[in-house]
């Protein structure tokens, strides 16, 4: 079952602009991950943020987590055409438990 909701469902921006995607979830979590999927292929892990963390950075990626609002955001700065993909958030309790995915955001970066 999916408990996450991403918004927007689709986002189209120009190369060089920033892209922000939001994810909301319904139940308490220990961990939240963001994944990227190119053209229906496998998922690539982008970044993990734990429930006791509020912000993490990885290269051009910035993830925030607000457990009081049960929401997370993914910011991609200085976007490139190669960032064109679907982005999913997924919540779970531990590495031994399955992921619950949001509906995803389809990002198109136009060169």
């Amino acid at each position: 079952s999916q408990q996450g909701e991403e918004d927007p469902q689709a986002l189209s921006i120009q190369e060089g602009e920033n892209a922000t995607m939001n994810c909301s979830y319904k139940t308490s979590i220990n961990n939240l991950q963001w994944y990227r999927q190119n053209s229906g292929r496998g998922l690539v892990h982008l970044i993990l943020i734990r429930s006791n963390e509020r912000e993490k950075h990885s290269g051009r990626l910035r993830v925030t987590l607000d457990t009081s609002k049960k929401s997370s955001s993914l910011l991609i700065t200085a976007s490139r055409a190669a960032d064109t993909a679907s982005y999913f958030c997924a919540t779970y309790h531990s590495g031994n438990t399955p992921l619950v995915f949001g509906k995803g955001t389809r990002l198109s970066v136009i060169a």
Partner: protein
Amino acid sequence: SAVISQKPSRDICQRGTSLTIQCQVDSQVTMMFWYRQQPGQSLTLIATANQGSEATYESGFVIDKFPISRPNLTFSTLTVSNMSPEDSSIYLCSVGAAGADTQYFGPGTRLTVL
């Protein structure tokens, strides 16, 4: 990180037939998960496979339709039985382990049923 391979990467099958998808991991892992991604949709968990025990299926998925094997800590198979066009999806396996936070995915198997 874990390196995961899946076979086949894609297949086109006739309705009424069955397809077995293999998932191989380069290290021993506790849990393996099978997901389905229907066209244009997000991922939905089919079942959790723990080595040495029966797989645990999510609501809407049954063992007769999606039998799973987990013979050891590095390998699992998912069979899609008596296929219909509605089974056309990408099937992905992922792995997790006790004490590890990050879960990794295989490249997926793109199944088309005619």
